[in-house]
């Protein structure tokens, strides 16, 4: 009876901003939300995260851009986007008209390009910026910033100086020491980090005996990468104090909970949206049910709780 009266609190605070719940789409899997509005109530999500936006239109890579893998998929879209002007004109008014928090993902090939986008977004009705220094599908810039701690520090610092909104830096898993990159972003002034972006992979078509993707390599996502992503979130959580958004193969509420226990204050759902456009609603519902059954007042109590347990055992 008592658990029925009290509704567990799903809201989380991220860099001082309160979100209804910790569940949001991963950039690039959700457009700017419009395509999904036929399938779900966008206002039920913790936040909407846009497709990467660059300082001018990017055409993206040739096709084929996708290959399914066991429990995952490879993509080589290459950050196709119509540019910041188009975003401000077409997408932002739409997002603003919905009662939801908005995070704009920023794409660029150089520090100057990132800064131009962030400058154009100054004082716009946007709640967060997510700096994509981890896309494996563009040749220069992108992932190069995310795989070198010093470059990650430099780009974070310069972009942060131009930003009027909290800055989340999205990290690449294609590194040997995720802790070093995470620390560099924190030192550069990031308000949070999100990880992981896709893992670099490939597929060869045995009929043509050539790489299947036109771009040869692509980013691997989906349930197949979840253990790797979880490990990296857990490691990063030990290294930084700024909030972490967990990403990588999350398709159920149990997955989301694992990331929260590993130290994520919020989670992003990506590839799972392609299998089920309503999956994020199921995850939110599952988390709420879990809190109720376990008699936990709020989800924030669980952030990083997986660490304390392990340390307890070690003692």
């Amino acid at each position, binding site marked *: 009876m008592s658990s029925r009266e009290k509704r567990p609190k799903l809201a989380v605070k991220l860099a001082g901003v309160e979100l209804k719940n910790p569940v949001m789409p991963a950039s690039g899997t959700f457009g700017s939300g419009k395509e999904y509005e036929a399938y779900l109530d966008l206002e039920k999500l913790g936040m909407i995260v846009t497709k990467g936006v660059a300082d001018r239109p990017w055409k993206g890579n040739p096709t084929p851009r996708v290959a399914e893998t066991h429990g995952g*998929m490879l993509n080589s879209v290459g950050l196709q986007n119509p540019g910041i002007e188009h975003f401000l004109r077409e997408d932002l008014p739409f997002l603003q008209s919905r009662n939801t928090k908005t995070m704009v993902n920023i794409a660029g090939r150089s520090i100057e390009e990132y800064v131009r986008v962030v400058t154009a977004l100054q004082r716009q009705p946007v709640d967060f910026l997510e700096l994509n220094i981890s896309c494996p599908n563009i040749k220069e810039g992108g992932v190069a910033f995310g795989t070198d701690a010093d470059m990650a520090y430099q780009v974070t610092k310069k972009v942060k100086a131009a930003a009027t909104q909290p800055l989340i830096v999205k990290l690449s898993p294609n590194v040997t020491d995720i802790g070093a990159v995470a620390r560099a972003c924190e030192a550069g002034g990031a308000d949070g980090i999100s990880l992981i972006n896709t893992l670099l992979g490939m597929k060869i078509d045995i009929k043509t005996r050539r790489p299947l993707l036109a771009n040869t390599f692509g980013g691997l996502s989906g349930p197949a990468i979840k253990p790797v992503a979880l490990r990296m979130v857990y490691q990063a959580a030990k290294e930084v104090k700024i909030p972490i958004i967990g990403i990588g193969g999350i398709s159920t509420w149990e997955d989301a909970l694992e990331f929260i226990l590993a130290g994520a204050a919020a989670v992003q759902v990506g590839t799972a949206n*392609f299998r089920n*456009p309503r999956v994020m609603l199921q995850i939110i519902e599952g988390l709420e049910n879990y809190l109720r059954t376990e008699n936990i007042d709020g989800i924030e109590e669980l952030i990083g709780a997986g660490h304390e347990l392990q340390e307890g055992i070690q003692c």
Partner: protein
Amino acid sequence: MEKKNINKARILKNEALGPEIYQMVLEVGDTGEAVPGQFVNLYCKDGARLLPRAISICEVDRKAGTFRLIYKVLGRGTEEFTQLKENEEIDWLGPLGSGFTLNTEDREILLIGGGVGVPPLLELAKRLTGKKRVLLGFENESILTGDFSKVAAEVAVATTSGTEGIKGTVMDLLEQKEYLPDRIYSCGPKGMLKAVKDWARERNIPAELSMEERMACGIGACLVCTCKINEGPDPRDWNYQRVCKDGPVFNAEEVMFE
């Protein structure tokens, strides 16, 4: 507004039509305003196969609430579909994408299909009111020629192996007669679509092409299934548009083949 969702459909029929070609009849209840050229997403039961398979709609029976789909076995996902039995259920979403435009003023219509691109032209032929001639190309065995005969004035078949109809392609069929239709609709392999586009342009005949590309979401979000579309008078004014959402049907003059 009621939200769209993945639903369960009951399989009424699932049988081989030819080597690697199957037909499935799905009872979905409400087919919606499905138009020819649209497709449905079918989802695998095996969770390791994440992505939906986009299958074009061959026929719609609104009254019965059924779709007839024809699919080719191209990998493990479609292979899984062949194992489904009558009365089993499958997850589906749709109808998706844009369809062909149904121009009622057209008097002479030419439908050109190749291989597994032939099925969506059947529902189109049923809905168009003008006089329809249908040119179909296959590697070996034809499909659906009997169905087309019921709704079209003429059905001609070409096979590259010569086992049925004339030996050659639909382009050889086009040369056999004087065709001057008001409009052309076409669906099939890229090489064929490019040849159809060029043929139509030389004669100044409007044409619509249904494109195919590897998809992920099927609802316009992921940007993997793009094709090059000319958006202005300058050939440099092109962008990758989404086959699943902006298409699969495009005006032939906009489609840029590489």
